[in-house]
C-alpha cells in the first residue's frame, strides 16, 4: 500500500479562529478514510484546502508523493484528485451526457483546440457512454442537470469525478439529503470506488461511515482527536466523550 494523500501539520486561521489546527492524516490507495466531526469542526475548510480552493497558513499537502501545497485546484486535479461538493455544483444548462462528456474531455486534454468539433470526438463519446452505462443516470442521459432529482445530481457529480480517473477522491457529504433507498444505492457505488482510488470521505451519516470506512479520523475544533479503525473509534472513550456524546447524536 502507498499513500495517495499525506497531510502534515496543516494550519488555517480565520482571524482569531483556528479552523484547521495542525492536522496530520493520510489516505492509502484502495482505502476509504472517513473524516467525521460535529458541525463547525472544520471539515469543509480542510476539504477546501486539500482541493486547493483555500491556501493553508502552514503545513504541507502531498498528493501521490508530490508536494501540492501551493498548487492551484486544477493542477491537483490533473495529478489525480477528484472531488464532489457538499452542495452539488453542476453545469445546470448541460445534459447529463454533456456534463460527463465535458469531464471526460477535460481529462483527455485538447481543451484549447479551437477548430475541432467537441461533439464529434469519438473517444470522448465512447468513454462517456461507458461511464454512464449501467448507472441509474443512463436513462436520464438527455436530461438537463438542473432538472435532475437531488440524488441524481449527487450521482452525476460522482460520475463526473470518476471520469477524471482520480487516484484520490474527496467526497464531501455524499449522503447528505438522500432518501433511504438512494442512500443504500450510494453506499454500494462508494464501495465500488475502493478498487479504483483512495477515498477521503467526509460524512455525517454514521451508518454509511461504519459500513464503508477502513479508517476513521475524528475532527473537533480543527484538531484530529482520534484516528483508527471502525472498532477503535466506536470504542474510544475520548471520542465518545468529546464528540459522540450520546448515541442519539450519532445520526
Amino acid at each position, binding site marked *: 500500500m502507498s499513500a495517495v494523500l499525506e497531510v502534515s501539520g496543516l494550519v488555517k486561521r480565520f482571524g482569531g479562529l483556528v479552523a484547521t489546527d495542525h492536522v496530520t492524516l493520510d489516505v492509502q490507495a484502495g482505502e476509504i478514510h472517513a473524516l467525521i466531526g460535529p458541525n463547525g469542526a472544520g471539515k469543509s475548510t480542510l476539504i477546501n484546502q486539500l*482541493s486547493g*480552493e483555500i491556501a493553508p497558513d502552514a503545513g504541507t499537502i502531498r498528493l501521490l508523493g508530490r508536494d501540492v501545497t501551493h498548487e*492551484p*485546484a*486544477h*493542477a491537483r*486535479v*490533473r495529478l489525480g484528485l*477528484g*472531488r464532489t*461538493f457538499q452542495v452539488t*455544483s*453542476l*453545469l*445546470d*444548462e*448541460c445534459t447529463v451526457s454533456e456534463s460527463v462528456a*465535458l*469531464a471526460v*474531455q*477535460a*481529462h483527455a486534454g*485538447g*481543451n*484549447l*483546440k*479551437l*477548430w*475541432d*468539433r*467537441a*461533439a464529434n*470526438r469519438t473517444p470522448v463519446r465512447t468513454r462517456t457512454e461507458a461511464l454512464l452505462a449501467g448507472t441509474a443516470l443512463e436513462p436520464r442521459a438527455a436530461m438537463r442537470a438542473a432538472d435532475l432529482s437531488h440524488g441524481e445530481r449527487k450521482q452525476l457529480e460522482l460520475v*463526473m*469525478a470518476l471520469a*477524471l480517473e482520480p487516484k484520490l477522491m474527496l467526497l464531501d457529504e455524499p449522503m447528505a439529503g438522500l432518501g433511504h433507498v438512494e442512500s443504500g444505492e450510494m453506499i454500494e457505488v462508494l464501495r465500488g470506488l475502493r478498487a479504483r482510488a483512495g477515498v477521503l470521505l467526509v460524512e455525517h451519516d454514521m451508518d454509511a461511515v461504519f459500513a464503508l470506512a477502513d479508517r476513521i479520523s475524528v475532527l473537533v475544533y480543527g484538531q484530529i482527536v482520534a484516528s483508527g479503525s471502525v472498532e477503535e473509534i466506536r470504542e474510544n472513550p475520548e471520542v465518545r466523550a468529546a464528540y459522540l456524546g450520546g448515541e442519539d447524536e450519532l445520526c
Partner: protein
Amino acid sequence: MRQPVAILLALVVLAVLPTLAAWAGSPATVPLATRILIYGIAAASLNFALGYGGMISFGHAAFFGIGGYVVAILFTHWFNEAPIFGLIPGTNQLLITLPLAIVVSGLFAAAIGALSLRTGGVQFIMITLAFAQMLFFLFVSLKAYGGEDGLSMRRPDAFLGLNLRDRPTMYYLTLVITVLFFAGLRRLVRSSFGTVLDGIRQNERRMEALGIATYRHKLFAFILSGMGVGMAGALMANAMRYVSPDMMHWSRSGELMIMVILGGTGTLLGPLYGAAALLLLETWLAGWTEHWSLGEGLVLLAVVMFSRGGLIALLRRRT
C-alpha cells in the same frame, strides 16, 4: 432543416443588396450595410467573451480603436514615407495591416485580460472600463496621430487590386469576411475550447474541479474576443478612412454591449441582428426627428422590459 434555407435566403438578399439599393435610389444603404456588418463582427466578438465566456467587459471599444489605429498609423507612415521610430516602414497592404491589427489587438487584450481577470463581477466590468479609458486618454493626447481630431486616410488600403474606395466593393469584401467570420465563430463555439468555455461560464468552480485552468482559458477567450473586435476596427478604418479616439470612448463599449444584449446574449447571430437593429433604428429616428435619442431610449427600454433574451428570443417565439 429550415435554418439553412433561411440563411441561404438572407445571403442572397445580402448579395444583391447593392443592386437593390441602386434600383431603389438609395445607394447610401450600401455603406450603412457595410457598417452594420462590421459592427456585427465586433459585437459578436464581444459576445464571445460576454455571452459565451460570461466575462462582462465594458472596455472592448479599446480593441476596436486599436485595430483601427493600427491600420491608420501604418497608412500614415506609408503615405508620408516615414518609418515608425525610423525603423518599421508603414504599409497600405490590407493583407498585412488586417492581420497585424488582429495581432496587436490580441496583445492588448492579453495584457488587459491578464490583469482584469484577477477580479470578477462588477469589479471586472469596471476594471475593463478603466483600461479602455486609459487608452482613450492616451490616444486623445497623442498629437502625432491627430489626438482628439483623429487620423484621416486619403485612400483605403490596397487589396488584390480591388478598389475599396468603391462602396459596393468594400461592402462585398466586408460581406465575405463577415460570412467567413461567422462560420469560424460557429465552429469555435462548438469546438473543444468552446465547450470548456461554456462550462466555465456556467460554473467556474466545477470546471476548476474538473482540472481546467479556468483563468488561462478565460484569458484565451478574452484574447480571441479582443482580436475579433480589433479586426472589426481595422475594417472600420478602411470603410470610414478615418479613425479617432471616439472609437474607444466608453459609450462605444456600451454601444457594442447594447448590440449584444439587444440581439441576444450568447447566441451566434444575435449580435449581428442587434447591430442592424440599433443602427437602423438610429438612422431612421435621426432622419425623422432631432430628438431621436429620446425615441431610441424608449425603444431600448421597451425591448429590455418586455423581452428576455433579446431579438433572437422574440424571433424564436414567433416561429
